């Protein structure tokens, strides 16, 4: 499809569009780029709005419903923008045995939000996770910039939340 047929105003900037299109040769068909494209759009907007899904569909020559189908299956993609930092607190077995559920509750109570919500100042989104694969740090937490926290207790959890509210750290510095 040529860009001229796209509705205006377009949401996905040209640079991002080119990045998505650069993934097309990796796969035998365009549809397979759906997941990478959703990831790219997500890291650009920190959410995947409907308009972006529509544009992904146009780039990949599928229907918006197919994009929504894929997107809604996974727990990763939110539709409303996230806070500056998104942190997952693990509640899976190893973490639960060491107090993961309580830590999640504690963190949410501290921040005055429910799991899955963003703080009022828009700095931090706290979510639960079904295993983060960092059970060697259990009870653990992971922020979306790649920082791993754990083993946590109430005081280190508080320190973690304070750190996270300072904003994301680029991955290179890890």
């Amino acid at each position, binding site marked *: 499809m040529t860009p001229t047929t796209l509705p205006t105003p377009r949401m996905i900037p040209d640079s991002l569009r080119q990045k998505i299109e650069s993934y097309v040769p990796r796969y035998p068909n365009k549809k397979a780029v759906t997941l990478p494209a959703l990831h790219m759009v997500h890291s650009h907007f920190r959410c995947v709005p*409907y308009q972006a899904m*529509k544009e992904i569909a146009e780039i990949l020559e599928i229907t918006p419903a*197919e994009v929504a189908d894929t997107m*809604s*299956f996974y727990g990763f993609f939110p539709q409303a923008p996230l806070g500056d930092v998104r942190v997952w607190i693990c509640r899976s077995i190893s973490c639960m045995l060491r107090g993961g559920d309580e830590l999640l509750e504690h963190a949410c109570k501290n921040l005055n939000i429910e799991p899955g919500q963003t703080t009022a100042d828009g700095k931090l989104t706290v979510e639960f996770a079904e295993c983060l694969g960092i059970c060697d740090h259990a009870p653990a937490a992971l922020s979306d910039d790649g920082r791993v926290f754990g083993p946590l207790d109430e005081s280190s959890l508080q320190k973690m939340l304070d750190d996270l509210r300072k904003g994301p750290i680029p991955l290179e510095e890890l």
Partner: protein
Amino acid sequence: MATIIIDGQSFELPEGAKFNAIQAAKHFGIDIPYYCWHPALSVVANCRMCEIEVGTKDPATGEIKMLPRLVPGCQTPARDGTVLVTESAKVLEHRKNIMELLLINHPLDCPVCDQAGECGLQDYSYEHGRAAHRFVEERNVKPKKEVSDLIVLNQDRCIMCTRCVRFTREIPGTAELHVMRRGDHGEIAIFPDQPVDNPLAGNVVDLCPVGALLDKDFLHNQRVWFLSKHDGVCTGCSTGCNISVEENAGKVWRHKPRHNPYVNDYWICDEGRYGYKAANSPTLLGGNYVLEGKDHHGVPTDRFVKRLNETLTTRILDKQSVLGILSPYLSVEEAFAAAQWLASLTNRVELALGPVPVRGEDLTFAPDKTKGRSGDTSFIVPRPFTISAEKAPNRAGVEMMLDHFGKGAVPFEKALESVASHPIVIVFGGSPDESWIEADQVAALRKAEVLVLFDTTINPLADVADFVAGIASFAEKSGTYVNRDRRLQRFEAALPPREGVWPLLDLIAIVSGDGKAPIRSQEILKAAARVVPGLAKVEDGLVPELGLNLDSKDQPIPDAGFQDDWTLANVSTV
């Protein structure tokens, strides 16, 4: 010869058959329950209702080896030596479990659900379910939503068989429907502002085995067990889709597709689906009328026939010639009877074809099995579905009659030019659409000295014709049509002719005064087959259920497709 063993009995599979276990069992009269499987869609085996015990028989030793676990029948090919056990204790217990699981989050609102009476859940829970279920937790409640202007989705009734999703992806290829989220919170959904509005959209309602997808047009109007079904053929276009016309209390309530692998497979387009409304239209002609001065006066049929015959006889004795126009909406029998009558009036008769409405281009949907979910597609025999641009059911059949009685099919435009040389014009209409004739065409026809019209609707030509006879509408008559592919197909009357109106066949018999003239369409077809070479293949006026290909022999159908028959009538009662 391939042999399959079902429940200990051996059956010979038909030559060239491409069956799965459900189809094979059904072929031999054994029912295996299913939900998500559909003969024209890819196999995903996710409802798990059709699970049976499967094994193979070694042809050399005769030893039967069963698989240790249950296997979905939809996924099991029926081959030589396949052994199916459909009624073992294990299978029956499994069906009980699946029914229980399907119903734990299903509301028990059958009294207000339109699917009640043709619902897969009702049937199978009666036949295979537990009397009581053991679920005491809170049910998941899901919203009701509209997926298009015509279709409503009751998500809490959905069993996530994904038939609808697969249909929109594989058949029209428009993929408007998708599954949202996962697990027991999964829902069927559309993308915002992208309703299911493809020309075949209504089929998702037929596909839905439960009351989740419902037609708003039919919603809350009728209970399905009050409806009488009549085999019909859609008059919307020259494809001639096989439909079931469903009526109650003198009204047609809906059209449903009827399976015919040679024509429409399992589908009909929305235009045909909602074409039933014309049968209930208030603009149908309600009797016979004669133009006196400027006004039409309703007259009883005997007086109408008498006056018509008087006029025609006088004029014809004056050596005036007749132009007969036969619309492509007439059935083969009607066209034959009409042409025969016209030919009997005088030898100075010219026959022409009525206007053939054409809109757009043929629209063909080729099933694309790769577009669907990646299920097993090896059992599917894809057949394309076409919506014809030619919006009349029987041009081919009427032309056949014109060829036989006249000088070939004179097109309507040419016939209009010759009105001047034919003072008597007799038009046989029958289109359910009042606008089948345009103002300038009416004016051209009105130049005739005597204008006779046999038609179903109050239309511009009826406003000016000297004699107007109301005839039975498409839902009120029986007969046959010849479709685009020259397939002769029979349809039945769903309604009795409305009051004051005769079917055209009866009317012609009365007008022609031939007391012995056959008026049953089968007899007329029999008579027509004797003289019209194109109908030579018709035997004894009978047309097979799937129609008769007038030109060549039908290709065999490797997959014996069958329609879902989740109707109360099919449940064996105690």
